[in-house]
């Protein structure tokens, strides 16, 4: 499912839910809600990066790389706790963990070791680039019953992202005298880490099993921009995205 489709579904769901509110809904047993779920974080937009790097063999002239990271959808695990202060209003903290890997297409211009401004083009790919995003979502929640079994929870607030992502640091090539050509051998990668403050907004539609438990379908959009520190440079990336997951809701 694309991000746009998910966002459209989310809006539609909210509208439908709000129009179907019923005063006869079943109330949760207590003020606290514990939620656990799993789902998917939608593919994020592809990331293009251009950077220079110094090869160990050539300390006189920078090489240049263009890397296009694909934004793959991947598993999302989400859990949280919330407390109602009034009948409809509460606060909550959710933690989501996104973990996946992606592929990057790499092209590079490798300088000739003996002469300036004599570049050799190479291209290849890097796969299995690990990417982990922890999202700490602080939320103000508004909940209302919809009919007898459904309950709608609207939530929004800031999100703290903690991101670890493998990025392409440099390119290794195979070359030999007279170095007229070079061929791509591999992309060297490193872990880049950083944090960012963003926001989140979402809706949780809960099918109430009884006063102590329910099944929820969460649709959330969380977004931030993080500066990730890699050994050789800082990388600015968009983090988060559309998150969809289903799970258990426990009330106590």
């Amino acid at each position, binding site marked *: 499912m694309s991000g746009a489709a998910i966002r459209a579904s989310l809006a539609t769901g909210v509208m439908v839910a709000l129009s179907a509110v019923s005063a006869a809904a079943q109330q949760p047993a207590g003020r606290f809600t514990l939620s656990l779920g799993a789902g998917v974080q939608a593919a994020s937009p592809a990331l293009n990066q251009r950077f220079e790097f110094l090869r160990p063999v*050539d*300390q*006189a*002239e920078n090489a240049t790389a263009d890397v296009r990271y694909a934004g793959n959808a991947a598993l999302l695990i989400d859990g949280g706790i919330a407390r109602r202060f009034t009948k409809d209003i509460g606060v909550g903290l959710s933690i989501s963990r996104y973990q996946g890997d992606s592929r990057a297409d790499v092209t590079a211009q490798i300088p000739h*070791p*003996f002469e*300036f401004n004599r570049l050799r083009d190479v291209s290849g790919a890097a796969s299995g680039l690990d990417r982990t995003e922890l999202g700490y979502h602080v939320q103000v929640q508004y909940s209302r019953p919809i009919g007898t079994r459904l309950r709608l929870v609207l939530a929004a607030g800031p999100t703290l992202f903690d991101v670890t992502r493998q990025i392409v640091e440099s390119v290794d090539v195979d070359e030999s*005298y*007279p*170095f007229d050509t070079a061929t791509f051998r591999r992309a060297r990668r490193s872990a880049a880490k950083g944090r960012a403050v963003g926001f989140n907004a979402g809706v949780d539609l809960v099918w109430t099993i009884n006063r102590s438990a329910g099944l929820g379908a969460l649709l959330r959009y969380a977004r931030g921009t993080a500066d990730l520190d890699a050994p050789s440079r800082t990388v600015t990336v968009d983090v988060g995205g559309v998150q969809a997951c289903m799970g258990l809701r426990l009330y106590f």
Partner: protein
Amino acid sequence: MHAPVRALAGATAVAALATCVISNAHQERPRFERERLAPSSLQQLREADQRIDSLERAGQLRVRRVQDDTLIPGREHERFDQYHRGVRVWGGDVARQLRANGQVVSTFGTLYDDIDLDTSPAGEAATARAIVARRSPAETAVSRDPELVVLPRDGRGYTLAWRLRATSLDALDVREYFVDAHSGRVVLEYSDLQTQAGVVGRATGVLGDAKKISVRSGSGGFITNDALRPPASLITYDLKGDTARVRDYLLGRVQLGAGDIAFDWDNTWTDGAVVDAHVYTGLTYDYLYRRFNRRGLNDANIASRAIVHPASRNSSAAERMANPLFFANAAYFGGGLVIYGVGLPDNVTSNGRSWNHTVAAIDLVAHELTHGVTDYSSGLIYQNESGALNESFSDIIGTAVEFFFQEPGSGNLRADYLVAEDAVKPSGIRSLSDPGQFGHPDHYSLRFLGTADNGGVHTNSGISNHAFYLAIEGGTNRTSGLAVQGVGASNREQIERVFYRAFTQMLPANATFSIARAATIQAARDLYGTNSAAEGAVTQAWTAVGVQ
């Protein structure tokens, strides 16, 4: 005794050789003259080949070396030395080009007939060494193993002689001696030090251009030992002005060690002499490989060593006089070793010219290294016409390297037909386009006939230098007034390949200008075909400079 000289210059077109069958067992043996003008006919080639085979069977020709052709796959080049009763005839050698099926394509050489000489020496080699040592300055190293040779005496018969090589640092010279093996008399000697012609100029400092340098990381820093190019070692030594140590090294008293290799802590090199020597040596290697598929000076990746700062530029005038090679000169000492002069102090000129570090000129560096190529290929004897050809080939390759790596133009770091113009101001020391600019001949009729400078090796080189220039650029020779249709600057590699092929694989050690003409024309046919533009340009160029 009389020593009739036979200069072999037999060659023919490949196609003709493959299709024609000529047999005339009764024809007179081919008569090749030293000053032969044109390539031989197919028949002469066949007969010359038969003669070579016959001489080889008789033990009068022995294969010295067989090398694969680096430019035309499948071909190979044989070099024979002439022997008389087991003793090598000095300057008697033959270069034969073969196709893959064994057919002969060309033959060039010099053979000596009618040798009637007892090859039993009356004196010992040690005696000859002592004779040479007595004639030499105090600090002279003399060959430990003199070679017994038959020495042709240019119309005065032959002499059985001990050949010795003496390196004299007091005289800063490397001399070849030939000592009569019977009388103990020195019958021939000449300098074999292959240098730039010495002019004194004013130094303005090393050029400040940015370049890459291929070095090796070591303990705590970097050293100028090229680790990226194939030679086992391509090293630049920085002797830091320690002239005494340089002299001791040349005399074999000390060895250069790791501590003599130029060093830098952070791989940012600021010593221009070190940088230019090291980089230009590498680029010359690159040129030989890229253009000719040649792997270093001996085509087998011999080590190449450069020495910079053999003296301090601000040494006294007396010091400069005592060691002129270490200042306004550069010299190839054999075995891949080149020493580059430091130039002259700012207030000193020579013939109105100032001298920077000699390594500032890429053509000069390539020039010196090309002496090594010659040493390991044709072995052109460093006197008279063969010596001029030796010098000329170094100028030609030096210029070719310059055009390979620099943009054409005038001024510093621009490719032109001047020699060493980036180090010697103004205008360098020689010109391929206008040898007369330096008083050098641009025509065979103007050649220097004296004995100075080994028979004018740095002067008469202008003749073949100018032929090379005309074959590329075209134009009119001033002396003859003959016009040449060159192949054009965009096709310069054709003429470079032609001259390289001829000078490394075809010329005999004792070659003349005439043989060089024949060999280059043959090389043009080999590479680009009969009646090709290259053949036409080369032929016209030699004719224009008066070489037939």
